[in-house]
């Protein structure tokens, strides 16, 4: 709930209030958040909360038009807490201050229905992307629901299914805080939703700013800042259970929570737990086995001290989905084919499983010595395990079913063989999916090979060497944060904040043998180095333990720490004069990160073990926000900011698995951004229109993948990536008639690359550089991963007896494929003769960026809640998405990183051609049913 914003709005209005002689009070209007219709009979509880003063409290109810007025003349001037509740809605709480015997107008207070169609929006889905570094990537929602902003509330639900990124920004440009402590991943900057997924009940209380605005919790980035209040007292009081089923993510979610609310003795306790289980209707092999827990305790001593201890975690096993080429989808007759699984003993087994449990413990202390001053301290600790499994193999054929040599297209010069393969793809699961039985069989045949004497400890005749295993790559964090913030108000005109935070992070990157698949051990040497360099020390993964035999659960391959120490000092000043508000915020960050190798790699004995050079960065940001209120709900505001940001560890090293070498020319990212916004909220209309302009310069990226030409793991390191994001956002909600309201939102942007960055391709297992500082001709190409046009219109109906329904049409365009940088280099187009038509076609095929077809979606929802004996509340909601059942909507895709080399008879490379791209498709018609019970 955006109480702070309301508070600020309310303050500004203070001066323009009407005086009612001696009487003064608090007024406002209660509305339903979805339909903007008035809520009658809402309970408004007002209590005076200043120190030493006598307790004062009063209750009133909203009228037919949702309005209320409650006199507080008896209570006098000072701070008041207000609680607004209505059956079937989440309770809203806010604090205001009455001064000079003036009345206070809260304006419109919108309440969120407890049974909402948006109960599902923070769920992440695991995708396998082009980057094979550690972990696949998660599709993270970049737009949050539960904000009061009209655009975000429409976009969070209707745009997220098309993997919309707010303003075209990646997730690391949004800041997420919990209880005032920044939680973005220290190594990648990504928003950390997986830490608390499944804890929807305890993460509802959010305060957020959007876009470039700075917040009361930090200066923030360019894509908003959200603080989630997970205090025990922030969780709605009472007991609640919900059961949810859906056809796109998991079958079953059971969620329960109990909260005491703030009790008279100053304590509040809250617990919550949930489980999410099962697969989905669309993609075989994916599944959830998830569980989440939350424990919160809070103690207030008087009005001065507030202590809180919060712990939560979300252990999960989650099977991932893979993308494939259109050839594969067409062969199996489905765009939802998943190559990650195969049958083992008749059971579906997925090779790519996220295995994550990273608990977080938070301690907070707030000290309020005076009404106009507050000191907040926060400590957080994140630890645990974050693993992601994958097949690994040693000198044996690639076991992935959709490996390009296993596809009919590889035999385009031999139609008979292509035909055999095509038939097998259509009918034979052992060809179409991972053939686990074969992997076990190979391992059972595995022997020490004569001529290669690895170890004398083993009986050559009985010990089986695994050639195929399941590895689990880990990035296990130890993340510790200290946060201090002082807020001081100087009268009602000026407010200042000063904050400091320190972050200590030590993340261990390593992999373990998760399953030997029928063999007895894995031999920890580097197969590519062995192939290329034959013998000696060079193929040892770790010279400290050469020729090591690895058993299940043990580490192998690589092992290193990423270390980060980060100091942030920031300040923010708010000036309020009349309807005018100015906010100036600035931040300075000093950070230092380094790699610490735990293995001494045979190929890099001098550059792999121990600490790398420390990478030190001093960066700063400054933002100015100007805000003019014609009335409390009729606001024009603008922001401008210049930000610099150090590169993240995960992009800074050339080949972090093997050595300490840092990307050449590593530098801070520079961002200039500005936006202008108009917002109007009346009892009739909610409207926001924004325009934004952002230039991001000097971005760095690291893409790691298996290169078939080099037959080894390689890394693309790119530097000097510049992009420009320009666009508008607009949204409106208007009631039409009889509980029906109209809502519409549009986001139209142009997100393009504005530089030609440099790419260097290095090989994990040698000093060899495949491509060095090759210019990538990216200028003018589009930034991928999001529709550049997203729009939706819909109707919502809120009927009598807590009945609601909605229907919605969305349209998306400007969706582009993620590009392989190599395809836009001179290296890739060498040998293509552009003077011929054939050459022109080859050039186009290599360098043009695929744009996906526009998409049109129809979604609907309906719900109802029942109040039983005025004590229990039962609710039901059903939503159906993609009602037109369009199964050909591409939501994303990427170009394969390798190129095919065409050679003449003596083996010289004539030219290169690209491999087919891989795609993700939106699910066809799907549903979600949520049943909810509260007492």
């Amino acid at each position, binding site marked *: 709930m955006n109480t702070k914003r309301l508070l600020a709005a309310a303050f500004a209005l203070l001066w323009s209030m009407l005086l009612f002689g001696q009487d003064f009070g608090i007024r406002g209007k209660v509305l339903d958040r979805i339909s903007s219709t008035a809520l009658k009979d809402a309970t408004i509880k007002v209590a005076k909360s200043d120190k030493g003063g006598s307790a004062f409290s009063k209750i009133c109810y909203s009228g037919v038009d949702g309005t209320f007025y409650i006199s507080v003349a008896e209570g006098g001037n000072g701070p008041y807490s207000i609680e607004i509740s209505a059956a079937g809605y989440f309770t809203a709480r806010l604090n205001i201050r009455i001064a000079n015997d003036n009345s206070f107008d809260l304006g419109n207070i919108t309440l969120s229905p407890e049974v909402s169609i948006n109960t599902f929006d923070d769920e992440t889905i695991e995708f396998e992307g082009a980057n094979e570094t550690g972990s696949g990537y998660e599709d993270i929602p970049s737009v949050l629901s539960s904000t009061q902003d009209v655009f975000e509330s429409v976009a969070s639900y209707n745009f997220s299914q098309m993997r919309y990124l707010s303003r075209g920004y990646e997730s690391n440009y949004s800041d997420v805080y919990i209880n005032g402590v920044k939680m973005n991943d220290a190594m990648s900057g990504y928003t950390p939703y997986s830490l608390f997924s499944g804890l929807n009940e305890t993460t509802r209380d959010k305060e957020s700013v959007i876009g470039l605005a700075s917040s009361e919790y930090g200066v923030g980035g360019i894509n908003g800042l959200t603080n989630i209040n997970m205090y025990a007292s922030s969780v709605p009081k009472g*007991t609640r259970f919900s059961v949810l089923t859906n056809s796109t993510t998991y079958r079953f979610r059971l969620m329960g929570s109990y909260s005491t609310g703030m009790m008279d003795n100053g304590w509040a306790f809250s617990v919550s737990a949930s489980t999410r289980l099962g697969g989905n209707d669309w993609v075989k092999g994916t599944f959830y086995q998830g569980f989440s827990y939350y424990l919160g305790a809070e103690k207030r001593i008087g009005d001065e001290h507030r202590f809180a201890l919060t712990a939560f975690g979300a252990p999960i096993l989650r099977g991932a989905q893979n993308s494939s080429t259109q050839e594969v989808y067409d062969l199996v007759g489905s765009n939802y084919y998943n190559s990650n699984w195969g049958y*083992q003993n008749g059971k579906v087994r997925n090779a790519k499983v996220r295995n994550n449990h990273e608990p977080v413990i938070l301690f907070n202390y707030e000290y309020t010595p005076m009404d106009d001053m507050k000191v907040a301290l926060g400590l957080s600790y994140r630890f645990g395990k974050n693993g992601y499994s994958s097949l690994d193999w040693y*000198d044996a*054929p690639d076991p992935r079913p959709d490996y390009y040599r296993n596809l009919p297209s590889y035999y385009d010069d031999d139609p008979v063989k292509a035909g055999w393969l095509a038939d097998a793809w259509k009918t034979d699961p052992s060809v179409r999916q991972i053939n686990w039985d074969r992997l076990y069989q190979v391992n059972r045949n595995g022997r020490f090979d004569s001529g290669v004497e690895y170890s004398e400890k083993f009986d050559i005749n009985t010990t089986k060497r695994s050639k195929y295993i399941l590895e689990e790559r880990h990035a296990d964090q130890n993340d510790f944060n200290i946060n201090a913030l002082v807020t001081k108000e100087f009268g009602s005109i000026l407010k200042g904040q000063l904050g400091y935070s320190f972050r200590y992070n030590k993340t261990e990157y390593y992999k373990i043998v998760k399953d030997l698949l029928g063999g007895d051990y894995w031999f920890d040497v580097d197969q590519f180095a062995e192939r290329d360099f034959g013998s000696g020390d060079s193929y040892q993964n770790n010279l400290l333990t050469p020729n090591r035999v690895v058993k299940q659960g043990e580490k192998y391959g690589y092992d290193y720490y990423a270390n980060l120490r980060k100091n942030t000092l920031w300040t923010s000043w708010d000036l309020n004069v009349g309807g005018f508000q100015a906010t100036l915020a600035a931040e300075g960050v000093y950070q230092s990160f380094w790699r610490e190798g735990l293995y001494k790699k045979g190929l890099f004995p001098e550059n792999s073990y121990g600490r790398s050079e420390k990478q030190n960065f001093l960066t700063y940001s400054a933002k100015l926000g100007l805000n003019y209120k014609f009335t409390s709900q009729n606001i024009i505001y603008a922001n401008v900011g210049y930000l610099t940001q150090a590169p993240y560890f995960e992009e800074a090293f050339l080949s972090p698995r093997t050595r300490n070498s840092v990307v050449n020319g590593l530098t801070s990212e520079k961002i200039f951004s500005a936006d202008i916004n108009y917002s109007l909220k009346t009892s009739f209309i909610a409207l926001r229109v924004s325009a934004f302009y952002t230039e991001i310069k000097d971005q760095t990226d690291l893409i790691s993948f298996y290169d078939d030409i080099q037959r080894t793991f390689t890394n693309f390191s790119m530097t000097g990536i510049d992009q420009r994001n320009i666009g508008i956002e607009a949204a409106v909600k208007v009631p039409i008639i009889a509980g029906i309201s109209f809502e519409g939102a549009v986001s139209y942007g142009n997100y393009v690359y504005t530089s030609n960055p440099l790419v260097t391709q290095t090989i994990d297992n040698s000093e060899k550089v495949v491509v060095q500082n090759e210019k990538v001709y990216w200028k003018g190409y589009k930034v991928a991963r999001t529709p550049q046009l997203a729009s939706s219109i819909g109707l919502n109906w809120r009927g009598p007896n807590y009945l609601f329904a909605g229907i919605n049409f969305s349209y998306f365009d400007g969706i582009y494929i993620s590009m392989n940088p190599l395809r836009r280099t001179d290296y890739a187009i060498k040998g293509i003769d552009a003077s011929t038509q054939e050459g022109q076609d080859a050039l186009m095929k290599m360098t043009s960026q695929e744009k996906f077809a526009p998409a049109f979606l129809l979604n609907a929802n309906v719900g109802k809640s029942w109040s039983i004996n005025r004590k229990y509340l039962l609710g039901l909601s059903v939503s159906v998405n993609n009602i037109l059942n369009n199964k050909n909507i591409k939501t994303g895709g990427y170009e394969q990183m390798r190129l095919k080399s065409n050679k003449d008879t003596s083996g010289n490379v004539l030219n290169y051609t690209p491999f087919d791209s891989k795609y993700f498709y939106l699910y066809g018609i799907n549903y979600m049913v949520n049943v909810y019970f509260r007492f």
Partner: protein
Amino acid sequence: MKSGILNIKSFIYFIGLSLLAVSCYRFEEPPVQEPVKMETTMTIAQFKALYPGSPYEITDPSIVISGVVTSSDKSGNVYRSLYIEDETAGLEVKIGKTGLYNDYPRGMRLYIKPELLCLGAYGGSVQLGAASTQEKYETSYIDVQPLIDRTIFKGAMEKLPDALVISSSSDINDDAVCRFVKIMNASYQGSSSGLNTWAVKADNDLGIEAAYGEQNFKVGDKQIVVRTSGYASFADTKVGMEINDKCNISGILTKFNSTYQLVIIDLNDVEKL
């Protein structure tokens, strides 16, 4: 407060129950596959004799032959092929996959139902592969898994057949081709500067391409070429043999036109005298 504690207790139960519900993601090992056993209908020698002098696509579904794997592509000197032999002859089977030694280790008995496959010759030697679409080759690699699954069946692990001993020039003949042999007392007859390495490995830094090495030996009065791929893991291992130095050397005997060649499997095959 009391009811609060009760509720917390019931929550702990709830958590416990949920944990139970989350069954472990575990899998039983698949059963060990029983080795295939088939009745053969002809020997390898009889089968090779079916080759009429031009590519012969086998259409008889009743034919079954069998042999034990004698080669390994582990070192990379044999590539995408394997050799089997029975008491009568040896045969090259052009399966076409890489890393074949993982699936078909030396000593494994294979049964082959060659319907859909093709007998052809390369340099006068009969091979079993798939029908070729290119005129210059009589057979192609079998390559595609569904075709392999239809034609090649894994039998039990047996003992690697004893090498056919070749101690005089008369032992080198067409009956021995494609068999695992051991040549006794071969004398090096190559370059006057001696036998340095078996072949030339690629070196990108020096711009050297991989190249086959052909080393001449003599058994009695017959010449035999030890032919080694530049991609073999031992290609650039120092050998150190002078003219007339002798060794016992094992491998698969092949024949290209009129030249007898030896393909060594790995360095254990070379025994300097």
